[in-house]
Structure formats: structure tokens, C-alpha cells
């Protein structure tokens, strides 16, 4: 269970990216986060795993308040939260295998990982994860030799290595074509349904939201303007979220 209470983020330059945002995500939910560009979706997701320091508010995760944990405890929190990025954020020059194994770094001792020695179980797990996203045969390729869709699958495999309880996906399909988008969203859905992993996914296209989301929250200029079922977004709500001049397509 993830509970966000009165979360506010003000960047150093004074930009208020999140304004008093509160919501809850029950375990196993597929939560879609929508909103215009610049509405604060990425900021919200990054506050949860503390890639960005929240300015005010609380984040409760499995009954611990994680908005101020530091050091070893922060690492323990982070390793249970996988993250998937719009631009994949793979290490281009490393092999696919090494990229996937890096998802395990929160569990492996510093010395062993610096020497590149991962336990046998982790290697097995890495192959299994790659298998799951269907690119086991690419394990030894360099990451930048893969196509966009394949790279995002490596990203998913890397997140799976963390044995996550929550996956944060920041516009995971925005750089992919529609066919690939559905394939990647399908993988996320499968992980959500089969493993019971909570997924919090920011999306641009409402049809994806309606197809994959159990629940939607919408941000507008950092404020939570809507919370409900995907099917509840009718034309009026749509204009509330995206502004008066927005036209609904698709």
C-alpha cells in the first residue's frame, strides 16, 4: 500500500511542480497517471523513489514514512521499487546481461559487484527475466545494438531483477510506435496481474489508459484534478484535465 499525503515539490528555481498532492494506491493496482506535459508526472514518480527530494508532505510505503529515510534504509526502500523510463536509461556500452544484472545491485555486496561477481542465482534470475520479456537470445549483445522496443524490455527485465513490490513507469511507451507500445504495456499488465506487483504508470494516450489502467489520477499544473476509474473520464472531465481547448482524439 502506497499513501501519498500532501506532497509538494518546489524546485530550486521556484517552480512548483507538485502542489499538495494526496492519493492512495492499494497493493496490486495498475494506476495510470495522466496530465499535460509539464504537469508534474515525472516529478511525482521520482519523489516516490526519492530520485527527487520532496519539499513537503509524507510518503507512506508499507507503513514506513519514506520521504526522509537516508543511507542504508533508503537503499532498502529503493531496491523494492523498480523504475522504467521513457528513454530506457540503459548503459549503452554495457551488455544486455550486465544491464539486467545491475537491477540486482541493491542486494549484492559492493566489493562483489565491483568485481562483477554475481551469485549464480542472480545469473539464473537474469536469464529468466530476459526470457519473460522474450529477448533471452540478446543477452550478450551490447545494449545500444537493440531496437527501442527491445531496449525497453531490457528495462523491464532490469526492474524485475529487483523483486519489486512496486514498479514506477514514466511514460514507458512514449518513444515507441503504437504496436510496440501495446506489446510493452502488455508486459507491464502481465507483471501486474501475474506477480501482483503494483504498477504506477504515467501515460499520454487515453486509449492506453482505458485499456490498461485500473484507476487514474490526473495532474494539472502540479495539482491533483481527477481521481477515478478510466471509464469516468468523459468529455467534461477531459477538458478539466487537459484544458478547455483540448480536443479528444482516438
Amino acid at each position: 500500500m502506497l499513501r501519498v499525503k500532501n506532497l509538494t515539490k518546489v524546485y530550486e528555481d521556484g517552480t512548483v511542480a507538485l502542489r499538495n498532492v494526496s492519493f492512495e494506491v492499494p497493493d496490486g493496482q495498475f494506476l495510470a497517471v495522466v496530465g499535460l506535459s509539464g504537469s508534474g508526472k515525472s516529478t511525482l514518480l521520482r519523489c516516490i523513489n526519492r530520485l527527487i527530494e520532496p519539499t513537503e508532505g509524507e510518503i507512506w510505503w508499507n507503513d514506513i514514512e519514506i520521504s526522509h529515510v537516508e543511507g542504508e534504509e533508503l537503499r532498502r526502500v529503493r531496491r523494492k521499487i523498480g523504475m522504467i523510463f521513457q528513454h530506457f536509461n540503459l548503459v549503452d556500452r554495457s551488455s544486455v546481461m550486465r544491464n539486467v544484472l545491475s537491477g540486482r545491485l541493491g542486494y549484492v555486496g559492493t566489493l562483489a559487484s565491483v568485481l562483477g561477481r554475481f551469485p549464480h542465482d542472480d545469473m539464473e534470475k537474469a536469464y529468466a527475466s530476459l526470457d519473460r520479456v522474450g529477448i533471452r537470445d540478446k543477452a550478450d549483445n551490447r545494449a545500444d545494438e537493440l531496437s527501442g522496443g527491445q531496449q525497453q524490455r531490457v528495462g523491464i527485465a532490469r526492474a524485475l531483477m529487483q523483486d519489486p513490490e512496486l514498479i514506477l513507469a514514466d511514460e514507458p511507451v512514449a518513444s515507441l510506435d503504437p504496436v510496440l507500445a501495446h506489446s510493452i504495456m502488455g508486459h507491464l499488465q502481465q507483471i501486474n496481474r501475474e506477480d501482483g506487483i503494483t504498477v504506477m504508470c504515467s501515460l499520454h494516450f487515453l486509449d492506453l489508459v482505458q485499456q490498461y489502467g485500473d484507476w487514474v489520477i490526473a495532474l494539472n499544473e502540479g495539482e491533483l484534478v481527477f481521481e477515478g476509474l478510466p471509464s469516468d473520464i468523459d468529455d467534461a472531465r477531459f477538458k478539466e484535465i487537459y484544458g478547455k481547448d483540448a480536443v479528444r482524439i482516438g
Partner: protein
Amino acid sequence: MATNKENNNDKKSRPLLRALLIFAAFIGAFILYAYAIDVTQINFTEPQDPKRQEVTTRVIRALARPDFFVFNEEKRAMNVMIRIPCEGEVTGSQFALSDGRTVTISPNCADTTQDTIVITGSGFQPNTSGIIRWYPPGDTSATRALTSFRTDGEGNLNEDFTMPDIRPSEEPQRLEIEEKWKSGGFLGTGIIGFSEAVKITVEKIIETVLLALMATTVGTLLAIPVGFLAARNLMENIGLPLAAILSGVIGLLIGFVLGDNITKWLLDLASTLTNNTLTGLGIAVVLLIIIGAVLKFAPAKLSGEERSRLATSIEWLRVMFIIILAFFIIAMLAYMGIVLGKSLEGSLGWAAFLARFISFLSEGITVLSPIVMGLLLGLIGASLGSTYGQEAILRTNVTTGRIITGIVSAIGGAIFVYGIGAALNWLYQFDNPERWTTYPSLVAAVILLVVGLAANPKRQYPIGMVIYTALRSLLNIIRSIEPLIYVIVFAVWVGIGPFAGVLALTIHTIAALGKLYSEQVESISEGPIEAITATGASRVQTVVYAVVPQVVPPFIAFTLYRWDINVRFSTVIGFAGGGGIGFVLVQNINLLKYRQASVMMISIAVVVISLDYLSSKIRKRII
């Protein structure tokens, strides 16, 4: 309206102001250049001075004829007679030799130093240079050169000259016409070998390139950690509570003292055990077997979510045990190596340098390892200290946190101030250790105790930016001084020669590469860092997994580039006593041996150009 008027005013006053500014700039530039030319003594008189021009011409001509080869020269002389002064009728005379050389001298006598004498001849070596000498009467060993000549394609000779001096005698006086030509040797060019200058140049240019290689290697190794620590993006968000920072200082000290002393003790033990080589070897083998056993029978359990504290500690102990044993073996081998190297040196002949290398490596291990181990354990101590300091503060309540912070800060601050005081005391010879170390550190301890108790123990201090700023400033200072200046200092320490050059270039390389590396780290893409951080990786893991792969190719490219620059530097570093080709070059110039100096200059050009080409080729391949 008002604004309009102001605008108009502006427009009017601006051209005038601009004209005035331009005029002032002109006057300023005029004065600046007038003074600059005066100060730098640029003038037209000196370059036009005929004497200077003559000397310069000679130097340039010498430089244009580099002394590359030793030639096989053959020569052949023919005598003709001349009367001084003239007696009776003035005519020419003819001389002939059986080999076909004939010479006419006309007139065959001279009265004054103005009389032009013409020598024509045939049957000489075609296209050959030679010299005409005069044997003045009386002193038979003294000769004077009259003129040099060159024969034409048919072997004819036509030369006129005047006598430089009139020394009357009864007997006719002898003129000698000597031809000199190169023969035999390589393809008939007369070349029979390389000159001494070439031999020295080859030896010294190798020294130069290797000097640059050593400086680049050592400099690179030291510049890599500097590069990461001086990268803003890695350092800027490192903030630690006061207790963590100062327990880091304590850890550093404890680690250093431990590392240094343990290593010295191990070295002593190794030295005693290797008094007898056979025992030494035996012990080494036994230790190796023990290491193998430890590796084999206690398999690594390095990961696993439920990794217990005990298991982690055992794992660490195991690693430490192996490292210590391995070091001990190396130390024993080093002591044996010193003996071995010394005994081999005599019997290896030209490869004696290999034996010296064994001795060098062994000695290096025994001399450097205490300090290296000290620094290494110091770093580990600092990192452990700051981690545990931070965890202690995070896990305890505020009051306990304050007490911990107070105590740790007092001790750490005292150590820090004591260290700085001791350094100042040594540098300026205050000879008053109490005033410079004991009292200030006590004062620091009290202040920090109070601060530690009073301040919020969880407050973060931007230690990363402090290290970053300090390191960057240091790099900039070091880099701003040229290696040519460092070499003067190092020549005092280790004597004039290539070693001083290596040290000077190394210092500069660390600073220059450290800066390039850190800028490279700053320019990598942030995405992977973000992603790896999000997996729960520690800072070290993030650097190894997200940063290192991105910077390896540019680091290699920069290193090659630096080697290139170091070769250039090392050609001149000899001017200031740093060994290499520069040293002999400047010697030859001082002795006015320009033809030899020319060989060295050419060799520098060849080496620099070819390395430039080579390194750019390799760099292109890598990126």
C-alpha cells in the same frame, strides 16, 4: 511622449559616445603596443647587423647539413711550383703526372698579394671538390689554404686566387692541389656508418619517449580517482551529517596508521623469513596453498536477500585474510627478488636492465607498500567511518544523536586540526609543536563538541562540494605551472636526469588529465545514473555500473592525447635538467655543434609527428 524624447536623446548621444569610446580604445591600444614593443626590445637594427647575419647564416647552413653519417673519403694530391718573387720573364708553367693530370699555372710567380694567379687543369676526378694549399718556405709543417675548387663534368679545373702573403725564397715554393671524394661504402655513396651524433640521438630519443610513457602511465593511474572526485555531477549531492564527516576523518587516520604499521610489520617478518631463500620459497608455496584452500572450501555467498550480518562479516574477514596472505607472499618474493636481481645483473650482459628491473620492482614494493597500504586502508576507513557515522545518526533519537555527534566531532576535528598544525609546523619550522598542534586541536575539539551538541544532528553538510571545490582549485593551481618549472624542483630532489623529468611530467599529467577526466564525467548522460540509483545501488556501485562504462573510451582517448603532449614536453624538459633528448640538444648548441644539434632537432620532429599520427589513428579507432 516622455519615453519618446528620451529615446531621441539616446539616439543622438550614442554615436558621439561611441566615437569617443572608439577613439579612447585606439589611444589605449597605441600606448599598449608602443610599450609592448619597447619592453620586448623588438627592433630592426640587430637583425640587419652584418656580423650577426653572417653568424646566423653559418648556423642555418650548419643546421641544413645534419651530421648523419660517417663517410669513407679518398684523396689525391698533385704538386705545382711557384716562384716568389718573380725573376726575369713572367710566363706560365705546365705540370703533368703519369695518371693524366695536367696543370697550367699562370703566371708561375707572384710579387704582391694583388697578383691574380690562375690555375687550369684537366684529367681530374669529375665533379669533385678539393682544395689548393700553399707550403710556405721554412716551416714545412705549416700549410695555408688558398682556395677551394670544384671540377666540372669532364674533370677540368679552373680557379684563380691571390697569395695571402709574400714570403720570398730562393727555391720555388710548393702548391698542393688536393681532390677529395667519397667512395665505396653503402651503394657507392661513401657512407660507411652513422655518426656519433646519430647514435646519441637514438639513445636519447628512446629515453625521451620512455620518459613520456612513464609519466603518462603513472599520471593516468593517479588522475583517474581525481577525475571522479572532481566531477560536479557525482559530488554535488553528497551531503552528510557532521558525525558522518568527522567519523570519516577518524576512520581515515585509523586506517592509515593501521595500514602503515601492519604493512611494515609484515615486511619485517617477510624479510626475516626470506633470509634463507629456500625456506622463503617453501613458506610462499605453503601460503599459496592456504589461499587456494580458503578460496575453494569456503564458497562465496556474496548475495541473497536474507544475508545475515554474521555471514557478511565472515565474508569480509575471508577477503581480508586472503589479501593479507597475498601481500605477504608478494613481500617475500620482493625480498628474494632484490637478492635475485643483484646476483643476476652481472651475468645477463646486455639484458642486465631486466635484472635491474626485478631489483627495482622488489625495492619499490618494500619502499612504497607501507604508504600505499596506509592510504588504501585510510580510504576504506574513511568510507566505513562515514557510513557508520551516518547510520548511527539515522538510527538513533535526537538526544543520542547529539551526544554521538558531539563526541565524534570533537575527536575528528582535533585530529584534522592537529594534522594541519603539524604540517605548518614542519613547513615553516615554527619549532613550537604545542602552540601549533596541541592547543589548536584542543580548541577545535571544544568548539566542535559544542557545535555537535547544539546543532541538529541530522543536518546535512555539503561535503561533496567541499571536496570538489578543493580538488578543482588544486588542479587549476598545479596545471598553471609548466613542467619545465617543476623539473627544476625535482632536479634538486632526485638529481638532474630523466627521473626528474618523469616526476615533473607526472605532476602536470595528473592535474591536466584529472581535469579532462572530470569534465568527461560531467558530460555523460544522466539517464543511466538515475536508473542505477533507482535500483538501490550504493554510490560506488552507481559509479562502477553507470559512469565507468560511459567514460572508458574517452578516458583512453585523453590518455593517448596526453602521451602525445608528454612526448612534446619531454623533448624540451631536458633544457631544465630533466634528461632526454633536450639535454644533449642544449649541450650541442652551447658547444656550437650545430650540425649535431640539427640531427637532434630532426629526430624530435620525426618522433613528435609520428606519435601524433599514431595516437590520432588509435583515438579514431576507439571513439
